[in-house]
């Protein structure tokens, strides 16, 4: 029973990621694409968690943290770039 539920959820997540990728490709503006990419990263975390249940291993659980951190940093960098045109500001005093 649990196995069926997990496989079904993997399928649902795959559909969700396809929908998000549609938005990444089409999205009229760059922030649209960034939002969709962020959601793709968050969905990847879920897929890794489910895969490690299916494969019955703990080896992938570090990757959850890594993908979460990288997705967050990617979003922050993109939004800083969009807003200011630079990512690391050199001028600290204004």
């Amino acid at each position, binding site marked *: 029973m649990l196995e069926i539920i997990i496989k079904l*959820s993997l399928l649902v997540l795959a559909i969700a990621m396809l929908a998000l990728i549609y938005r990444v490709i089409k999205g009229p503006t760059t922030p649209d694409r960034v939002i969709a990419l962020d959601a793709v990263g968050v969905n990847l975390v879920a897929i890794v968690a489910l895969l490690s249940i299916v494969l019955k291993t703990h080896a992938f659980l570090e990757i959850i943290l890594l993908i979460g951190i990288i997705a967050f940093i990617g979003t922050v960098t993109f*939004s800083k770039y969009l807003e200011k045109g630079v990512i690391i500001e050199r001028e600290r005093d204004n």
Partner: protein
Amino acid sequence: MNAIIEFLIGFFILVGALLSLVAAFGVIRLPDVYTRNHAASKSATLGVMCILLGAFLYFYHLEGHFNSRLILGFVFLFMTSPVAGHLISRAAYHSGVPLWNKSVRDDLKRDMKKASAGNKDDLKKNNKKKALVSK
């Protein structure tokens, strides 16, 4: 007892997957960046948090392995997702992405106009500085 736990795991995982699906449909269906952000930053987060909770329960009860990394990921996602949503919508607003044409009210535009009328000299100075920097 085992049956209840198994039911809980299945419930969490299924709810999480469905919430992710709803978030993805919201991202496709809603009309502009800001409303899409509502769907993406809320539903996707709770969906993934549910799935992580389900995975944690699975590893704890059926395999007897207390995995603290899942809890860490849970807490991390919970803390960062509102911040990410706020940052990207702010960047979208300041880079000039328009609101949906049926939007009714925009207080930020009004206040920004007021502010820029108030210190236009300041703005000019800033622009000069920016030009210098870009050179």
